[in-house]
């Protein structure tokens, strides 16, 4: 199969299949999972067996069922946070690039300060003050990560606003809405789609890390990060229980990354022949 005149690489197929499977799992969790997520079906950390394909967790619940339900929580929260991140980041980036220098300077300086620190450290500060809940986590992550998106969106928009066609629209007297939505956005979409994928990976891993640290999504909802946290002790007894949710996180991230890599490679390649100037 060819997309945009190029053969789709094997790795992109793998990534695509993983992403589709993950989406199916999220949408149809109650129909796929063999047991309800809170039902205790066996002993503590049973090894994989015909009844519980991936064994049981720290209080005897079916690991596979918890994984399927947990994926629902982990992926959907990361997705919401990523969407919010993109809306804030792209919105501010486009406004900074297409309005006045003053607005640009103000937004850029604030972002610089937020960029001067790792997201995790700022995040921990906020959780220490406000405590941890899903809305607080989503908002905090979105605000902090949108600074990274802002940088990219602003750069992309800057490259487009210097194009003469944007100047033509401005000289005609078009408003900011027309300039952003009709002139800039359609041309900025390809890099922003790739950025969405990258941000999703980052947010997904970040939320998993927070949950793992016991600061993210709180029980009783199952999510992959806290499942690793809850089952971590199994390692000390020679078990593998935390590896299943941790591996699931890794697989979904790889899947999205493979697709993003392919998206990026489409835009990185030169247009082809006629390179002679």
């Amino acid at each position: 199969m060819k997309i945009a005149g190029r053969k789709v690489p094997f790795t992109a197929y793998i990534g695509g299949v993983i992403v589709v499977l993950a989406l199916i799992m999220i949408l149809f969790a109650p129909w796929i999972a063999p047991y309800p997520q809170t039902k205790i079906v066996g002993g503590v950390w049973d090894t994989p067996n015909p009844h519980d394909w991936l064994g049981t967790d720290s209080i005897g619940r079916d690991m596979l069922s918890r994984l399927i339900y947990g994926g629902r929580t982990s992926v959907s929260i990361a997705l919401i946070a990523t969407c919010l991140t993109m809306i804030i980041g792209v919105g501010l980036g486009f406004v900074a690039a297409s309005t006045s220098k003053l607005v640009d300077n103000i937004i850029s300086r604030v972002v610089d300060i937020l960029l001067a620190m790792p997201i995790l450290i700022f995040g921990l500060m906020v959780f220490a003050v406000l405590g941890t809940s899903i809305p607080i986590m989503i908002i905090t992550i979105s605000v902090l990560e949108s600074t990274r998106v802002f940088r990219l969106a602003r750069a992309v928009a800057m490259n487009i606003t210097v194009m003469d066609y944007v100047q033509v629209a401005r000289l005609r007297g078009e408003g900011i809405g027309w300039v952003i939505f009709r002139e800039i956005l359609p041309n900025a979409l390809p890099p922003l789609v790739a950025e969405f994928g990258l941000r999703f990976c980052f947010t997904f891993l970040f939320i998993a890390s927070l949950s793992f640290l016991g600061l993210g999504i709180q029980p009783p909802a199952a999510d992959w990060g806290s499942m690793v946290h809850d089952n971590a002790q199994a390692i000390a007894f020679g078990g593998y229980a935390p590896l299943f949710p941790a591996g699931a996180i890794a697989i979904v991230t790889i899947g999205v990354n493979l697709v993003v890599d392919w998206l990026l490679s489409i835009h990185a390649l030169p247009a082809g022949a006629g390179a002679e100037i």
Partner: protein
Amino acid sequence: MGILRFIAARAALGVLTLFAVSILLYLGTQLLPGDVASALLGQSATPDALAVLRAKLGLNEPAYLRYLHWLWGVLHGNLGNSLTTGTPIAGELMPRLINTLFLAGYAAIIAVPLAVGLGILSAIREGSLMDRLASILSLAAISFPEFFVSYILIVVFASQLGWLPSLATVYDGMGFWDRVDATTLPAITLTLVVVAHMLRMTRTSTLAVMSAPYVETAFLKGLSRSRVVLSHALPNALAPIINVVAINLAYLVVGVVVVEVVFVYPGVGQLMVDAVTKRDLPTVQACGLVFAIVFIGLNTIADICSALANPRLRSRKRQ
């Protein structure tokens, strides 16, 4: 602008940023709902008890004064007292900072040469088997959460093979090599995660330089591949690579937090996570400040180094 003026300006900007971040760190914890006193006493607090504690903690002063007091203390090595233990934070923090820097340094010593070397090699042999292998493996490593890498390493090297300890226990007066032995697994974990990022970014920067017209010129002069890479491509790729290294060293500082928790390693990251769970704000602040200093310091040094690598800045004097 002369190079010295650039360095001075960049260093000043670093200090200014640190200052701004410290204000954010301090006021953020003070102005958000639920001050330290109510956090300390919990929901059962009586108004009287709250008032007494507020007075004791100096919470009745205006915010900027409290910030200045705090800053004054910080500049004199006084980071305040922990809310949970009541002991000075500095005493708790310093040995942990040394532990953290030891671990991060250990990882950096392995990671930087490995990643930069492999990154440049992949770029020069773009499309080769080695390049594609490095590209796929690094993509996988980027996708793995730190704790996943940690557990795999623990299962293999600690549980199955029994070569290394699964917990990174260190204590005062521990010998250097014992310390190295104890921190090898966490260091390898950090290395794997950071190498992947650094390798990919180094490769991209080097590729960008390799496609520059002056590299074509060098090839058309009949120079050997190694000569072109060493004297034409690398000097120009140096500035971006220095930036790549700095960004990733900074990333290392963040990665440390999770890895310290996995291996129960007594570092600043673990202390901070503990403090967040217990809502011990002064300790969280102090840890945040320490991370900020390391992070901003690294970025400032990197900017200065890459400016030094840029001939346009170096040779301004003649223009």
